[in-house]
């Protein structure tokens, strides 16, 4: 991999927020589309493998934040599409708020130094 150094580790607990936000802005998506979107947004820095992404999706589904259902892609492939549930939308709002607070705190800390 050429851009290995440029890759970053997914911060613990942030993957859920990324997935929820992606689905919120793009509507129902299958797993590959979510991964591709995150890679694109991060400029290739964030490359999720299947072993990380799909257990996370399953966990969110088990927590009642996502709903998964089989459908077909534009290229007529069968794929599992995930959509936000009302609980997921509520979770996204609160997660986003706490993320913003965290960012502000870190920012303040760094500025002080």
């Amino acid at each position: 991999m050429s851009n290995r150094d440029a890759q970053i580790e997914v911060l613990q607990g942030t993957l859920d927020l990324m997935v929820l936000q992606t689905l919120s802005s793009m509507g129902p998506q299958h797993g590959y589309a979510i991964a591709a979107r995150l890679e694109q947004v991060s400029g290739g820095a964030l490359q999720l493998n299947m072993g990380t992404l799909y257990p996370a999706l399953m966990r969110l589904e088990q927590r009642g934040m996502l709903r998964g259902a089989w459908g077909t892609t534009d290229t007529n492939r069968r794929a599992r599409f995930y959509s936000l549930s009302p609980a997921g939308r509520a979770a996204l709002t609160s997660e986003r708020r706490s993320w913003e607070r965290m960012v502000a705190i870190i920012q303040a800390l760094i500025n002080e130094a």
Partner: protein
Amino acid sequence: MTSGLRGLREWIQRLLGTVRGGRPDEDLEEELRAHAALAAEAGTRERRSIDSALEALRDQRGLPWLDALKSDTIFGWRQIARHRAVSAASVLTLGLAIGATIAAFRIVDAVLLRPLPVADSDRLFYLQVSYVDSRGEPDTREDFDYPTFIAYRDLLARVADVMVVGMSHPADATIGDSQQAERVLRQFVSGNVFGTFGLTPALGRLIGPSDDTAGAPPVAVISYDYWTRRFHQDPRAVGTVLRYGDRVFDIVGVSPKAFIGTEPGLVPDVFVPATSNTEALNSPGWSWFLIWVRAKPGITPDHVRQVLQADFDREHQARLKGFSSDTPRKTIEAFLSEQISLLPAAHGASPIQKHLGSPLWILMALVGLVLVMACATVGNLLTGQTLSRAKEMALRVSIGAGRARLMQLVLVESAILALGASALGALFAWWAAPAVLAMIEPIEIPVRLVLDFDWRLASFGAVLAVLVTALFGFAPALRASSVTPVTALKGDDARQSRRVIKSLLVVQMTFCAFVLFAAGLFRATFDRLSSQSFGLSYDHVLVLAANARNDDGRTAHWLQLADAVRRLPGVESAAVSGWPLLSQNGWQETVHGGDRGADGRPEYLLGVSPDFFKTLHVDLLEGRDFRQGDAGPRLDAIDKPVGGVGIVNVAFAQRYFGGRNPVGERVLVRQEKDVDAPLDIIGLVSNTAYRTVRERMRPIVFVPYSGVGQGTLLVRVAGEPAAFGQTLARTLRREWPGARMREVRPARDFIDTQMVVERLLARLTGSFATLALLLAGIGLYGVVNDAVIQRRREIGLRMALGAQATDIVRHVTIGSLVLVSVGLLAGLGAGVAFGRLIGALLFQVTPTDPVALAPPLAILATVFALASLPPAIRAIRTDPTETLKRE
């Protein structure tokens, strides 16, 4: 939704995923393949393989540890089903041992551990006086008289609630309009008992302070148990009347269901106010109840005790002034050293607790040992099995199973066995606990214990199952987990496993020898107690006890009754005495004279009518029996001593006359302080026991029955005594309508009642010993058999070279014989120490007695021979050519 709730939801989903399967593997795989295909289409390469991603998904779908447990359970069950014989033996062995343990616990719990269902039970205490008895042995008593209660109630008014808590006694009563007398278990309570206990009635009202005053209308409260049994929970029971003799009590209420009295083992039928026992209220020395106290808030029990002890000491100093001038110093010192103490009453206080307390703990301990033995036996069987599974374990290790994983595998299998055994044990305990209770039955009053299934029993069972699993599963699990492919192939592992098996065998043998030894001690105690001669015959003898007003005609009535009974067909002889010998009653007076001169000492006395000795088959050796008109030494109307006649036994003649014929001699018998009356000896009889079965033959002076105190009629019948009870009761009603019958019972009861504990211990430890032997036999067989199989080739070689059968047998058994000997020595050593500890429960047996040591040795030798026989025979039948050909 909070994150905690979301986490819970995820966990439940994963639990369901484990139990029900969740999304199937194909579904997950299809999704991953779709992802890979989409990635390929877009020209990117997926780094993770589908397989490893699928593994991660599976872990997220369910709970991985639960998944492992599930597969281990399925695998373990298959293992158990495959080794059907070993599994069945394991479950049966453990089941019996667990059942015996639970049964023992049920009884220990019901008698000793269960807290009374009353308010602040941990602040309740009962009073106990410690004293030194006439033989110099320390003893305790818990019963008090009413004047003492009044004194203590006033003394402690500011620091504690003081209560009369009676000892339940059977009494004859009639209920409602019924003329039929019924026996009810009656308990006297002071008016503050129910209030202090914080009880609310199931029906009507309970006894209150206003009911417990002189002159209050007599009321009674019946127990829930009695209400159910006698009245079938009819609410009209309240308002019914209850008659004791000429006293009429109104039933005013039913006590709550949970309250089963204050004496575990006895459930009273009726509670009545203490003041209704009118004759006893002003009788110092008539002790008929326990005193319970509850310290007031902020007062320590020790403070209450100090207040009591100070008063107790004052009172003793005062009483000392009434002692005879010739009272020995030792007696005075013993009297002044008496102590009063507070004992916790949170678990109640009953004679059954006092008598069965330590025997029950001993039984519990022995049953625990048997359980450990059972665990060792099953552990051995399973270790043997893991031995044969070494290859399977090695395979698991080579494909990457960790130590913990292998241990879990074996432990899960053990847990399944333990579960089966627990179920079997619970069934066994259900049956066994009441059967054990039936053995305590001959105590005068039927024993009733609450043996309900409750959380106490359930949690005990659960803890037991876990413990048992750990105990027997641990050795094989440890063995299994230490398997490495290399050792498994080389066979080192087998050697190590055999070491585990051998050390477990030593443990088994130690415990087996110990249990066997203890059982032998209790058996010998019971045998010696029951086979000893009491100097009298109680077979075919009935005892009738009756109450009558204390008047001058009493003696004549008793003697007339005896005459009337003597004329009945089927009666061989009849006599009256104050109480039966061996009824644990006693009467002692100081006797002077004979060779001992003025050196007086207390001796047993008993008032008996003519024919007493004939009725009990006691030999009259010299002189004559009593006749109508004989009288004993006594005080006359102006308290001047008057001489009388008496008959003494051989022990008395030994002590006072050096064994000479004492007939015609005279001794002095103390009548009151410093006043003696002469007694002329008119007869000599053979020795008999007096008070208890454990007492040796002591000097006794028999005097003519004078009707003072109690009275009983002894009747020797030709046929079966039990059938004669009704006739006796009828005769009493006809001949002496003024008397009220207390009871008729076979005289043999007086002996049996005193050996209840010994019988219980002998029988139960006997069955534990049988179980222990069976377990030891199984263990031994396994080890010897293993030795034979292991050395098949060697044996074949030896036989081919001309070894004798005896050599072969010695060769295969010598190893286990050493193990057995080590265990035996350890077990017997522990047994001797234990025997010293429980000396008080033994009778004429000492732990180092050859009689006690020999049976366990002989029995274990026999078991060893029996268990080694089949494998030894197989060893000498080995066909050398066949074996060598196979190798």
